[in-house]
């Protein structure tokens, strides 16, 4: 099933300068009972966004009207913990298209690419400066160019390259899907099975 293509993203950012943000924070377990992929954005960072009484917590960045945009910038080891893809669905449903951090937990990274959410890995020092800048100047535009694997802050002229697996990049650029790829090589898979039953 071809999906939406990812190309160039140019937007302001939402800074979340905390490390080790786990998927239980992104979407708490009590919201995992749904059986579809939609609607999780409402409860994104639920327990940071709302207090116990269900009122908005004004200190939290998503409740601060100054900070908007489609890029989430967060401290290192983003998305650790539970494998729940619901975390990615919540981030995407809320409207983010990319997350920038100095490194991501493995399962989260796979999940995000499978949902067209681009995980952008930048050096720790760059991340620190970027977090400071976008926190201080919420209007800062950031440009993420997937084709050229570059994140750029036009106002300051600073830029940094980022790594992405060439196959995954191709998939994102063309809107291709891993399952389609695998379905197309089914004969090869059956061949593998055959060889291995012989071996056994």
């Amino acid at each position: 099933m071809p999906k939406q293509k990812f190309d160039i993203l140019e937007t302001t950012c939402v800074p979340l300068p905390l490390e080790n943000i786990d998927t239980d924070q992104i979407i708490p377990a009590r919201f995992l009972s749904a059986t579809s992929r939609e609607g999780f954005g409402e409860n994104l960072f639920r327990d940071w966004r709302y207090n116990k009484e269900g009122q908005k917590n004004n200190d939290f960045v998503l409740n601060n009207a100054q900070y908007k945009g489609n890029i989430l910038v967060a401290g290192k080891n983003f998305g650790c913990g539970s494998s729940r893809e619901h975390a990615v669905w919540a981030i995407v449903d809320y409207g983010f298209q990319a997350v920038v951090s100095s490194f991501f937990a493995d399962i989260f990274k796979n999940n995000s690419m499978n949902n067209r959410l681009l995980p952008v890995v930048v050096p720790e020092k760059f991340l620190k400066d970027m977090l400071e800048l976008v926190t201080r100047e919420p209007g800062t535009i950031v440009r993420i160019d997937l084709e050229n694997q570059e994140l750029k802050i036009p106002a300051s002229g600073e830029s940094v390259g980022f790594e992405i697996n060439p196959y995954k990049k191709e998939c994102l650029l063309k809107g291709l899907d891993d399952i389609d790829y695998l379905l197309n090589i089914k004969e090869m898979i059956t061949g593998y099975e055959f060889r291995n039953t012989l071996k056994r």
Partner: protein
Amino acid sequence: MEPKTLFDKLWDNHVVSSIESGPDVLYIDQHFIHEVTSPQAFEGLRQRGIRVFRPGKTVATADHNIPTRDQHLTIKDELSRNQVEKLNDNCREFGIDYFGLNHPKNGIVHVIGPELGYTMPGMTIVCGDSHTSTHGAFGNIAFGIGTSEVEMVLATQCILQAKPKKMKILVNGKLQEGVTSKDIILYIISQVSSGGATGYFVEYCGQAIEALSMEGRMTICNMSIEMGARGGLIAPDLITFEYLNSIPSLAGRNDFKTLLLRWRNLKSDEGAHFDRELILNAGNIKPMITFGTNPGMGMGIDESIPDADNSPEGAASFTKSLNYMGFNPGEKILGHPIDYVFLGSCTNGRIEDLRSFAYFVRGRKKAENVIALIVPGSKRVEQQAVDEGLDKILKDSGFEMRQPGCSSCLAMNEDKVPAGKYAVSTSNRNFEGRQGPGARTLLASPLTAAAAAVTGKITDPRDLLSN
């Protein structure tokens, strides 16, 4: 031939094809599913108009979102009930074996896989749950996946995956009395940090690991993910084979002898290259406890909480974490009152864990101020506990054994710890709100949990073992 690690051998054996400068297509021998991370995958199959490719290689259980009392009644919470019923319907529609509530084979996915003989050495195993790494204790490649990947496996029995780097963790020496496999892994994570093994697959070895039972080894591999590792494995040995031999469905297979012969060769070659090696001494490990909001924030139970400057976390995250827990840097937490104790989960919900808890509390009484949740990991564990009279020992000490499930490990059901309360928990995650909004979790071994349960405060289990 170049010496290879066990991980490399297993991986290479399962590569169907390699995408140029891309991930490998990895064949999956065994797939487990549960109610929470599978419905959207089945929906995906329907939208594509395809069937499950190899339904015999997937097994389903309901564990995450079920009550641990009155399991014979219909589930009260509508959304939870719906999710469990969906799994039942999906399994029926797609021809997958399903062990639902009350089925004698029901239980936490990572507890039933091994005990029913689905988990074997040499395999590739995946499940939409990060603690799939548990199965690695049998010498296989097992790791957690997301729902899109669950759909991939259902559709093609394969997954696209980049090969991780390899790390060896060697634990020499012997454990002190009162120190368990849970303490080994909490100690390792505190050394590596909660993200320190990201991108790696771990092989655990050394005298202290080899001395562990299969249950103990599963506890170690289970928490590999808590340092960011993709998974962890332990080469199979006589202890592994004995465990497997005790499973009737396996021992009764006519090819069991052949399998055993093949499994014997599953080990890393002498001199195989690991990208990173860590050597530890088991004798230095004390009973461990966590004080923060990620599993890397752990210390010896009699030690003091470090300062922000000495922590691998950023200062902001460290301070936020201690605030949440209601602790201060430099503070000792030994003797701190607690409110809840949770024994269970795929980390410590096996028979050995129930035994060590029960024998510890035998002849003692549950502290008045403590609410304890004792939750077996599966129906079989529950049955075995009853057969061994553990339920009676527990009852005499004031504890009630519940019915199996994930329970308070992720608190999707009603087994929640209230805001601000302290819970000594044998599970694997102490994240903010993991055991309920505002709950404060202290991860520890079943022995440390038992000591807390009878004293009502954080207690070094070694102090009670000696008298």
